[in-house]
């Protein structure tokens, strides 16, 4: 350093400017009263690894913030009252039509209140994005094995957030009291009434009367703007705390081990990036909301139990439930000799969906039990390195996607010029048989990819350079990977099927046998990671 630069630097150190002095005084003032510096120090130095798939949860979080902001605006103008009024607003095809105050105020938000329609569309599009981002985030966590110890609880909390998001979405979908929302509520009412013994009681409790009654909209409103958001915010809080406590997973790479986290600290780089990303998410939502109509409630008219429009569907995240009701074969319902109706056409989908959701929630515990793995895992696995898990995930996606597609069976039929019966039968097949096919194909693909990785790690990759040897033979030159690339291919855990062992009473229990069987199913077909010895011998 040159000497001329020293005097100003030292003078700046000894005599800070007024702004600096104020900042110092203010932060000290706050810190002495809150000890905030400890938190800032801990949080600010929190490390986040960089990978695009680690930002999907952020998309969900930011769209939730957008939902909160736009939803607050909507509560200023929405009135959930079920009092009947005559429409007097500016949308001509509804003028003079009797409707509830709730629907009237939703129309007023769309037509009379400045910025109201934009806010409604922002709110609705952000809600769709919120659940979609949660779904993709869950898939990322599942396929990289990021739910393994110590993150099982956070998986369950994330799952609860997914359920809350669906509940929030559905209650919101029902609030405008237009034809579409009433049709959706009618389906929920039917599902509740299909519950044996208690169904009719629960329905009356919820609706306060024979469907639809006038209680349901104000009740759903309270759930939608108070209870469900409060629970969601609390769960998000716990989710984030556990994220910090558990630390973030990272993909294997040189220098990244199970005991460290390599990435950028929260302050300043990551925070700036994340803050910017919030505005990008917000911007994308507002752009979509500005240019694309969502839920044009004015088309649907006020709720009336008699009409149902063609193309009546729930929002996408409830689609799988709607699809299950469409796919269940007819004639399953009967009246028993005691005079009770058993609506199996509704009950089977209902139970099936609950079992599916429970399976999603409990999968981490299931896998931990099968593998018998009690170690902590901080390295995100590549999907191919856990073939059976990846295959289970693919089977689950196929099952879900078939149900989901079934919710749009009528649209598929009209737009692809198919018969709706053909579409339904094809999707019934896809729901039942598809998961098995997906499982088999995915598992084989994973094993094949692992084999390819092993091959490349050992023998290098094909360089495309063909050389003629003095003897006349042609060979293609293989080039070795560098150590960084090879690391990615060779560092993964190897599991083996569990041995059946007698317990301390010398018995082999049934659960032991089941567990051993499942473990064999998981790990029977496997590709061993390349060992150091193999690499060494390959070099010579």
């Amino acid at each position, binding site marked *: 350093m040159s000497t001329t630069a020293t005097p100003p630097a030292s003078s700046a150190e000894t005599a800070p400017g007024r702004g600096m002095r104020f900042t110092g005084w203010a932060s000290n003032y706050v810190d002495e009263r809150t000890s905030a510096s400890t938190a800032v120090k801990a949080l600010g130095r929190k490390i986040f690894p960089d990978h*695009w798939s680690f930002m999907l949860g952020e998309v969900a979080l930011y769209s939730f913030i957008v939902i909160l902001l736009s939803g607050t605006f909507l509560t200023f103008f929405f009135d959930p009252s079920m009092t009947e009024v005559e429409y007097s607003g500016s949308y001509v095809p509804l003028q003079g039509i009797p409707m509830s105050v709730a629907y009237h105020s939703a129309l007023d938000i769309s037509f009379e209140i400045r910025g109201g329609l934009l806010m409604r569309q922002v709110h609705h599009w952000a809600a769709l994005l919120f659940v979609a981002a949660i779904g993709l985030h869950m898939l990322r966590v599942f396929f990289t094995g990021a739910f393994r110890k110590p993150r099982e609880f956070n998986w369950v909390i994330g799952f609860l957030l997914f359920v809350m998001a669906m509940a929030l979405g559905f209650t919101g979908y029902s609030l405008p009291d237009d034809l579409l929302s009433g049709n959706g509520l009618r389906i929920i009412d039917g599902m509740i009434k299909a519950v044996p013994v208690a169904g009719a009681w629960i329905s009356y409790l919820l609706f306060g009367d024979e469907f639809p009654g006038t209680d349901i909209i104000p009740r759903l409103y309270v759930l939608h703007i108070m209870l469900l958001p409060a629970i969601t915010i609390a769960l998000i809080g716990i989710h984030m705390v556990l994220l910090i406590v558990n630390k973030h997973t990272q993909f294997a790479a040189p220098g990244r081990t199970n005991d460290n986290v390599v990435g950028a600290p929260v302050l300043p780089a990551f925070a700036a990036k994340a803050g910017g990303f919030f505005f990008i998410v917000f911007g994308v939502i507002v752009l979509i909301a500005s240019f694309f109509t969502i*839920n044009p409630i004015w088309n649907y008219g006020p709720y009336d139990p008699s009409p149902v429009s063609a193309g009546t569907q729930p929002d996408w995240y409830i689609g799988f439930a709607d699809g299950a009701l469409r796919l269940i074969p007819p004639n399953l319902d009967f009246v028993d000799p005691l005079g009770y109706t058993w609506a199996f056409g509704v009950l089977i989908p209902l139970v099936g969906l609950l079992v599916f959701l429970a399976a999603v929630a409990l999968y981490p515990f299931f896998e931990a039990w099968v593998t018998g793995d009690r170690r902590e895992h901080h390295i995100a696995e590549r999907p191919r390195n856990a073939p059976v898990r990846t295959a289970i995930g693919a089977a689950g996606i196929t099952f879900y996607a078939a149900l989901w597609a079934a*919710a749009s069976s009528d649209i598929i039929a*009209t737009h692809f010029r198919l018969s709706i*019966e053909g579409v339904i039968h094809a999707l019934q097949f896809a729901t039942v048989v598809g998961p098995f096919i997906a499982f088999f194909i995915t598992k084989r693909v994973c094993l094949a990819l692992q084999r390819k990785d092993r091959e490349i790690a050992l023998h290098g990759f094909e360089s495309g350079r063909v050389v003629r040897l003095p003897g006349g033979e042609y060979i293609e030159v293989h080039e070795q990977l560098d150590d960084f690339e090879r690391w990615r291919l060779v560092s993964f855990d190897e599991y083996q099927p569990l041995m059946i062992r007698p317990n301390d009473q010398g018995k082999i229990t049934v659960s032991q046998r089941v567990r051993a069987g499942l473990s064999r199913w998981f790990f029977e077909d496997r590709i061993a990671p390349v060992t150091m010895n193999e690499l060494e011998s390959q070099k010579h």
Partner: protein
Amino acid sequence: MIRRIETHLTMAPTPASTRRAGRRHPLATTALLVVGLLATGGAYALATTTATAETTAASAELIDEGGKLFAANCASCHGMNAEGTAAGPTLIGAGALAVDFQVGTGRMPMAASGPQAELKPVQFTQAQIDAMAAWVADLAPGPAVPPDRYIAGDGDAAHGAELFRINCAMCHNVAGAGGALTEGKWAPGLAGVDPVHIYGAMVTGPQNMPVFSDLNLTPEDKNDIITYLLYVQENPSVGGWDLGSLGPVSEGLFIWIFGLGALVGVTIWLTAKSN
């Protein structure tokens, strides 16, 4: 009218000088205009009544013409005397309106057997369609083409929308975007359909559509429904592009593909390593 004015003019015996003054009178131009207008108006009225008389007179000729067109284009399925065959129903009693709808929307003649007749470019001129309609109407009484006041689309849009939701939306969708029926049949979208064809569909019940008789929906009700459909066509969605008015399916696809797709693109961009 004309004669009365003429007599009025001839019955004014005035001296030449006053007549000249009369020609120069400030109101002369106006009077001349009035005369001219009345004359042309009267002539037009006369001409049109003559024309109407001619149509009724030429009706037999038109029916003849329609019969020939029918024999050449329709009879292979509907039979030479429209008595119907295994390939097509009888048209006796189908009425002019049914012909106007089926041929006027290009559904007939059918290109191929299928779940239902498809829309395609219209194969005949309106005059030819009218001739065939006249021939079919001549076979037996049936629904006739409605007078203009029932297809003007100047009724009560709100009432029409309500009737549409109750009677039509379960197949055609609340916004008239169309929907699926059984066995590969479908209710078509209603955007851009001519009011007379909307009216004709309601009265004649083409393909799988039920008939909405005048006891079910009065002609005024039908006009209200047409009014609503025209309103929806002429007033695009206030919320932006309507994604086909298909409801939550297209919205869900859109947010997954374009919304989440765009944001995943952004995440990849944000975490990309600089080269």
